[in-house]
């Protein structure tokens, strides 16, 4: 039993470290993990879930704004990017946030093509992160169900 737990904990640790190393997550994610405890074991999962919902909604709205070349509402797109950049920063979604930085630049110069590329990239990145984090949370659940505790992971 202990071996199973130890193995799962190792897997969890290594997986989370790899997410940081590959740039999917940054320090803010570890800050969020600090806020989770036995009383609120789902805190991080719930926050990122809201974040992914946000992504989906904002991407849809921005997509509509960018649809017709002759009538792009760049103000609306800019507002969407701003919100996305903010929330991705708050959860530690590093790649999503970085795309938003480029996205904002395209928006500032009213580059529709560039915006569309960034939009597609943001869509890709948030979905990729969602899958990765799903795997991470599944590992967490397995550890807890096997009677273990979630390891602290120091990324520094």
């Amino acid at each position, binding site marked *: 039993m202990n071996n199973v737990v130890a193995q799962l904990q190792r897997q969890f640790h290594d997986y989370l470290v790899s997410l940081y190393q590959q740039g999917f997550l940054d320090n*803010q994610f570890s*800050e969020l993990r600090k806020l989770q*405890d*036995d009383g609120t*074991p789902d*805190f991080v999962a719930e926050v990122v879930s809201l*974040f992914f919902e946000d992504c989906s909604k904002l991407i849809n709205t921005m997509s509509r704004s960018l649809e017709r070349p002759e009538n792009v509402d760049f103000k609306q797109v800019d507002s969407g990017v701003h919100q996305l950049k*903010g929330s991705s920063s*708050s959860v530690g979604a590093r790649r999503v946030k970085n795309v938003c930085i480029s996205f904002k630049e395209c928006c500032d110069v009213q580059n529709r093509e560039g915006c569309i590329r960034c939009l597609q990239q943001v869509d890709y990145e948030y979905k990729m992160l969602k899958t990765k984090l799903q795997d991470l949370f599944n590992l967490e659940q397995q550890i807890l169900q096997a009677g273990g505790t979630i390891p602290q992971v120091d990324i520094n």
Partner: protein
Amino acid sequence: MPLDGGVSCLRRSEMIGIGIGELESPPLDSDQVHVLAVDDSLVDRIVIERLLRITSCKVTAVDSGWRALEFLGLDDDKSSVEFDRLKVDLIITDYCMPGMTGYELLKKIKESTSFREVPVVIMSSENVLTRIDRCLEEGAEDFLLKPVKLADVKRLRTYLTRDVKVSDGNKQKLPEDLSRFSSLEIVTPPPPQPLSSTTSLESSSSVESSSPLSPEISVSPVDSPVQQLEMRSPGLD
């Protein structure tokens, strides 16, 4: 909570309890620090609310400056006599919000008789010195760079420990200017506030249950634009 295919979502009741767009908060224990948090981003509201609760604050989170004014009873010209009981110890607001910015909210609070003494902290994702200056000049207590971290919120608690309870229960304020330096160095800490069991739902299992001035508060220069400002030469002010 078992996870199925999707990441689990915040329960509706929890969202309402946090005060998303809602103004209700449960009856306050008069010893508890009550913070009004203002942010149009749902994700940020959840995070700041959690950060504050973990540091033993009661939180009311609203999604706009207008809601904040409404909550404080400042949204019209009638006197706020009926809000004498309303105890807000700190207001923390995002800067960039549609409608009313955090700066505009700050001004309205500082113009009010009832709440001008309440410390107001501004949060922003952008480290713009002119913006920081404007806010500090208008009376903001501090300026936090987003994303906000636990160490930032712990530091905020030092403003709130200005009221030092002496044995006969009378509150004694520390000199005003000492609080200005609380972010640069830890002044002689007041006695740790006892954490009441009703303080936070997480109670004994909260991450940091030690005194607000735990050694983990880092005061490295990059943490706060305020510190960067304080280190400028006086000639630039």
